[in-house]
């Protein structure tokens, strides 16, 4: 240990540490208590137990016995968890025990200040950690519903239920039958095929029209630019159900309702705003003198566009295209109106499936779609970085 340290780690008084760990225990107790039938009792018991543990660790055992005390808490909580909820309870209990053992010493020994600059006031320290907890919770609430779906899709039963076999990690409780159902059932395969044949064409249309519109709207001499922009972006702002009903009546008159091209055009119209917005944003950083230079050297506008402008705004075009693709791939309202049974897409099939028969096949499909989305986004991100690196736009 160096003679001069900027770290501000010092033992905190019990009057500070115990209420804090007690509060944390109460918060955890709320969940355990609710699961066992009484939330309020859970809060009281959690706060009491953790505060008592805090007192034992900090007040009696002290820093020297930290290792022993923390293992003790892990074992105690694991046993308590086992009594409440068998094997899964044991795992959860052990995790709780590990966390609280660490937390008690982290608070009690004042280690939480170790990585912070020493001149922060207690209020600033509190905010520093509150902010992180809020971020963590947002992350948690966004991710949990997606994660919960995944194990359920391997359910051996035909319900959205964690069966006792699943909770015991018994292989009997798991099966791939819902995946098999997805890949062998003609309805699902037809829906998958429809989605796959509609989305890319709709994306291609929205990217072409959207990019052209964005380039046109970014030149100074186009009249009524704002009004045209507002109209083109309106599908994003107008409630979907209204666009859908409007398209239904309009397409019915044209004979497009219930046809493949009707759905493609409708989805293209929904995707165009995303392309316009992303491409317009990229064009802000585009240097117009480059096109003039190209023209000066004898390139016609088409060559200029493909050789000079397009490569530079490509990241915007790609991310706009990605949004357009996902819009079409995820869309259920418009296709319910504009499509007929022959254009039943995956989201439509999932929607009717959820309403009529809660089958985990939907979860299997959802898991596959999540996996595809992750792959797609990762690929695009990697490509984008690579192209930026190649063009020297960013050091990374």
């Amino acid at each position, binding site marked *: 240990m160096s003679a001069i340290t900027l770290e501000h780690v010092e033992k905190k008084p019990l009057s500070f540490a115990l209420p804090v760990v007690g509060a944390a225990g109460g918060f955890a107790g709320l969940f355990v208590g609710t699961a066992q039938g009484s939330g309020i009792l859970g809060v009281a018991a959690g706060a009491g137990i953790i505060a008592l543990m805090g007192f034992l660790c900090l007040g009696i055992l002290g820093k020297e016995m930290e290792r022993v005390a923390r293992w003790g808490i892990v074992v105690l909580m694991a046993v308590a968890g086992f009594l409440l909820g068998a094997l899964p309870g044991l795992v959860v209990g052990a995790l709780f025990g590990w966390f609280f053992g660490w937390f008690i010493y982290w608070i009690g020994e004042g280690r939480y200040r170790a990585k912070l600059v020493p001149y922060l006031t207690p209020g600033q320290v509190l905010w520093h950690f509150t902010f992180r907890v809020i971020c963590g919770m947002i992350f948690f609430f966004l991710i949990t519903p997606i994660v919960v779906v995944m194990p359920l899709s391997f359910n051996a*039963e*035909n*319900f*959205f*239920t964690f069966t006792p076999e699943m909770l015991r990690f018994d292989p009997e409780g798991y099966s791939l039958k819902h995946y098999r159902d997805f890949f062998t059932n003609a309805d699902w395969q037809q829906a998958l095929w429809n989605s796959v044949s509609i989305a890319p064409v709709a994306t291609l249309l929205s990217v072409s029209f959207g990019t052209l519109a964005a380039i046109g709207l970014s030149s100074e001499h186009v009249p009524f630019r704002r009004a045209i922009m507002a109209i083109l972006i309106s599908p994003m702002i107008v409630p979907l159900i209204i666009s859908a*009903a409007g398209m*239904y*009546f309009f397409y*019915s*008159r044209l*004979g497009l*309702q*219930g046809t493949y091209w009707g759905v493609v055009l409708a989805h293209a119209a929904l995707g165009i705003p995303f392309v316009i917005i992303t491409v317009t944003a990229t064009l802000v950083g585009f240097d117009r003198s480059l096109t003039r230079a190209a023209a000066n050297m004898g390139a016609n506008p088409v060559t200029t566009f493909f050789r000079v402008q397009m490569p530079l705004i490509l990241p915007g075009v790609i991310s706009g295209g990605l949004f357009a693709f996902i819009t079409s791939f995820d869309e259920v309202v418009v296709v*319910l*109106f504009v499509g*007929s*049974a*022959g254009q*039943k897409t995956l989201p439509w099939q999932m929607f*009717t*499936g*959820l*309403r*009529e*028969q*809660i089958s985990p096949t939907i979860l299997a499909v959802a898991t596959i779609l999540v996996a595809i989305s992750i792959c797609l986004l990762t690929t695009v991100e990697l490509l984008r970085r690579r192209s930026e690196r190649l063009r020297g736009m960013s050091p990374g």
Partner: protein
Amino acid sequence: MKSTKFLLATTALTVAAGGAFADDHMADEMTIVSWGGAYSNSQQKAYHEPYMEKTGVTIVNDESSNEAVAKLRAMDEAGNITWDVVDVVAADALRLCDEGLAMEIDPDEHLAPAPDGTSAEDDFGDLLVGDCFIPQIVYSTTFGYRTDMVPEGVEPPNDICDVFDTETYPGKRSLEKRPINNMEWALLCDGVAKEDVYDVLETSEGQQQALDKLDTIKDDVIWWSAGADTPQLLADGEVFMGSTYNGRLFSVIEEQDQPVAMMWDAQVFDLDGWIIPAGLPEDRLARAMDFIYFATDTQRLADQAKYISYGPARESSAPMVGKHAELGIEMAPHMPTDPDNAENTFLYNYEFWADYRDDIDAKFQAWLAQ
């Protein structure tokens, strides 16, 4: 030589095809709308597949029966009817018929007589509740309960009023999020005689009485809106008992092997059947009529019961109900119309609910929101 042959062959084919077309003027593709899930499946096995085999027609399935009324209105307004035959519940059929969106069908003229020669009208009997509606099945809304949640030393629930008895049968119940059926059951368990239920329910005091009765279990109710909800809740053990369609419960009990049993008491019968949208072009109309004639004959209706536990709407079909196609169990005892199950039943009161639905719905929703 080769090309001449080819030419001859194509000409012959064209002539043959043209001739066939001229013969019957029927479209060779049709869209049939139904509910999806196990129910659509049973129809496909019993009606669509044999019909496609017999005629070579392509049948496209649309699972939009839930929004059939709204969609048919929109189609009518847009002047673009894309459906050929639509499966709806009787109440929806009556509404569509009143609005002129469904075609009137004369059973004796357009439907097959029974094998013994009884006319279709007599064979369907009372179940022909509307001029546009051809009943297909009788289903019922009834309760199922978890057998492993019955408290020890207590009889399993077998009376509709056990639903309201949260002391003997503690646990959550799932009820449909609408007044129909719930109001009748509430009054029945509040001491109103069965034959007086609708007289009482006409008055606003009677409606309040029903809501008050429902209020006694409100905290224990999970409200459902899709037929699949109660089976899921029962399988989860989330509810002790819940109402849903009897075919759903059959699937939970017999096909999914869940610890659930039926409580048939005070089940409410309802009908589901076909309508043909008004305003179809001639060739499609002829095709739809031909399909309806085929799909509602005695044998076909009895066939459907092999795949799902709903009672065929024709009297002549009942003796022909056999065993389940995959499980091999006798289907007759699982039919809502089986005498053992039908000791105490209601028939959905179409007239009453047509008149009072809006009013009672509003009160029910207001009560729910309290």
